[in-house]
């Protein structure tokens, strides 16, 4: 018996594993990563439609393009003859991926299906009636509804073949029948999707035959896979990895602000938080700009709406960093450290603030807390940083001082949604119980106003009130990024992050 036989066997097993056939020819295949995927891809449930728009599977009547402009898609054009009516003309010659014709009737069925079964409250609109005739689709609302077009651009209202959905609801949630340049061949909640080209696409056959959509939740993995050539497109890469990716000759990096804003909601139910000087002092004690740029890799926020938006704010921050001023403010408010332990007291007890963030807010959320903790200590305020799986319970019970929140502050390119759902007196999302009559009046006015420019103006004013009151500390706007291999082209970075690839996807050498 030769001693080396076992080791030879081991090596053989090893080689058998390693020298398995290389990946199939990927000439006409594009590998892309998505960072989020849920159990199914029916656009009407939760945010699942985002997967369909991101991968060029589903299309709406109209969409918002990379420059934040309306783009006619399935609807060729539209008009609004009066405040309650919108008339869409459906483009001729579009078919669903199963060959069925897309006409006004099909669009009507799709919209009605979405309105009926969606669990998203924010996309419901005051519908009066939908009527269809040939290629004309008419939507009437019961009251003037300024953001109807924006809502219809939401992925919930992707035009699907409602008939196919009704016939095979179980199959439909994994292989929805839509109109986009790519269609779903297979779906797995763990692995992702395999897409093939929709040869009958209305803008012509796509250049790419197959798209391998890989679900990779870890940003680090996405970055490594881009460098090794395993991935052709990926998004939401970690800011720390961007310099490495930029140095890579075969990759192109697109980066810039998106519509996400990260903020710390203040809890007004705590007596110390009701003191304006205290809130201002906290705001002045922290290097917000450093957190934004160096820890989160984003852009320092000035209020909830970033400067990309027509109602964005571009002035100075309300309470910029000034440690001496923070100390003065606290002293003036009578919040001092009388027992000499380095922490100021409020009515005899040390102030130890609770900072709460969620696991899925990412590392930056926790790291900002840690940095704040260290800076607040220098002005004599204690803080504990807690990261939870889910903070709904803590939020409801008010067991926090700062709640880290992530918002797409203007999903429909309008200021009302954010201001109202987050900060109106008594609204459900107003966990901190912020209340300011001036702000509520402004919201009332916003609800009555139809004129776009006036609405934008009111939005800016509302944001200003929130900043002045420190109703929240607006930390940073996220920088979105898209990185792709130069062997493909036609990749655009959408500010909305709702679209990653579309019919423009091509191989670069052609």
């Amino acid at each position, binding site marked *: 018996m030769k001693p080396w036989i076992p080791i030879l066997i081991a090596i053989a097993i090893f080689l058998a594993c390693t020298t398995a056939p290389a990946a199939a020819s990927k000439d006409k295949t594009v590998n892309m990563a998505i960072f989020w995927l849920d159990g199914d891809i029916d656009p009407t449930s939760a945010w699942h439609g985002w997967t369909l728009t991101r991968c060029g599977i589903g299309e709406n009547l109209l969409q918002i393009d990379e420059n934040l402009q309306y783009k006619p898609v399935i609807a060729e054009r539209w008009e609004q003859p009066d405040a309650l009516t919108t008339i869409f003309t459906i483009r001729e010659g579009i078919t669903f991926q199963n060959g069925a014709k897309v006409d006004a009737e099909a669009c009507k069925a799709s919209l009605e299906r979405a309105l009926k079964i969606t669990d998203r409250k924010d996309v419901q609109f005051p519908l009066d009636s939908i009527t269809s005739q040939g290629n004309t689709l008419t939507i009437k609302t019961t009251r003037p509804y300024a953001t109807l077009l924006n809502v219809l651009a939401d992925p919930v209202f992707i035009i699907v073949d409602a008939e196919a959905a009704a016939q095979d609801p179980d199959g439909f949630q994994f292989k929805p029948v839509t109109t986009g340049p790519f269609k779903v061949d297979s779906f797995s909640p763990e692995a992702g999707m395999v897409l093939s080209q929709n040869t009958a696409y209305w803008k012509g056959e796509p250049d790419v035959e197959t798209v391998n959509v890989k679900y990779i939740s870890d*940003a*680090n993995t996405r*970055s*490594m896979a881009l460098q090794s050539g395993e991935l052709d497109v990926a998004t939401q890469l*970690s800011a*720390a*990895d961007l*310099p*490495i990716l930029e140095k890579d000759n075969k990759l192109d990096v697109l980066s810039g602000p998106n519509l996400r804003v990260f903020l710390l909601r203040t809890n007004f139910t705590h007596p110390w938080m009701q003191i304006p000087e205290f809130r201002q002092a906290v705001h002045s004690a922290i*290097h917000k700009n*450093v957190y934004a740029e*160096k*820890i989160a890799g984003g852009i320092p926020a000035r209020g909830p709406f970033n400067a990309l938006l027509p109602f964005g704010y571009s002035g100075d921050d309300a309470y910029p960093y000034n440690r001496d001023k923070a100390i003065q403010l606290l002293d003036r408010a009578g919040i001092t450290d009388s027992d000499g332990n380095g922490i100021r007291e409020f009515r005899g007890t040390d102030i130890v603030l609770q900072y709460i963030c969620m*696991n899925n807010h990412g*590392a930056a959320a*926790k*790291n900002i807390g*840690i*940095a704040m*903790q*260290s*800076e607040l200590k220098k002005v004599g305020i204690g803080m504990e*940083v*807690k*990261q939870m799986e889910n903070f709904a319970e803590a939020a409801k019970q008010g067991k926090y001082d700062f709640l880290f929140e992530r918002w797409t502050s203007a999903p429909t390119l309008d200021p009302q949604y954010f201001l109202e759902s987050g900060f109106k007196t008594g609204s459900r999302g107003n966990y901190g119980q912020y209340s300011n009559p001036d702000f509520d009046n402004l919201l009332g006015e916003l609800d009555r106003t139809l004129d776009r420019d006036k609405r934008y103006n009111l939005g800016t004013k509302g944001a200003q009130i929130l900043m002045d009151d420190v109703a929240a500390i607006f930390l940073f706007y996220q920088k979105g990024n898209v990185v792709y291999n130069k062997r493909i082209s036609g990749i655009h970075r959408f500010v909305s992050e709702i679209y990653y690839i579309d019919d423009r996807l091509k191989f670069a050498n052609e």
Partner: protein
Amino acid sequence: MNLFQLNKQHQFIIALSLAAIMVTLALLGPLLAPHDPLETDFVQILTPPNPEYLLGTDQVGRCILSRLLCGARISLGMTFGMLSMIFVLGIFIGTAAGMRGGITDTVIMRIADTILAFPDLIFAIAVVGLLGPGITNTICALAIIWWTKFARLTRVLVRTAIHSEAVIAGQMAGAGTVKLVRHYLLPTILPPLLTQLSLDIGNMMLALAGLSFLGLGVQPPTPEWGSMLSEGREYLQSAPWLVIYPGLATFMVVVVFNILGDATRKYLNPEIS
């Protein structure tokens, strides 16, 4: 290689001093640390090792070396805390079962057998997953499994010792139970138990660090090695020192305690090996 050729006593002394150095480092950690482990330096975020920060800084500009030194106390403290808990519990229950015998013995051993049939880490994951992450839950979960090991060993040792001449002589001399245990039993059963203990330290440290790595144990920003590593994972490529050093530190400490375990076994139980 020389370590293997030394005699058992020397090996034991060397291993013990290595472990002592580790423990001293851990105890003095906060004094030795060049910076405050929680202090953030915004100018130097994710800087590679340099003369000011010998092992570099992390994602919020904290000194890794200082965090490692201060984290040692937490990592070791956690392990030793849990160890003493299960050691005392195990000996107490094991002795009770062994001395009493009969129904007490049967019940305790049945329970121990059932618990031992659980895979330890999975049980910890179950407890932490269902009751919520945190170091107390983790330690309790692991302790619930691991005391049985010591209880069983103690029981076997007690049963053997009880029939030994020394104990019978003690009983004849009219010693009470407490005295009997202290003077006659403990000296006999302690060496094998201590051996087992020293052999287990490394495993326990790895288990605790692993659970912290998964986010189930120590919660950040506490500088524990496993959780430092898990925080640093995101920067594996852009700042590998965030991952390399905490892992290396864990590795070194576990090696030292495993060496100590081996040396103790050889020294206290010369008949094995």
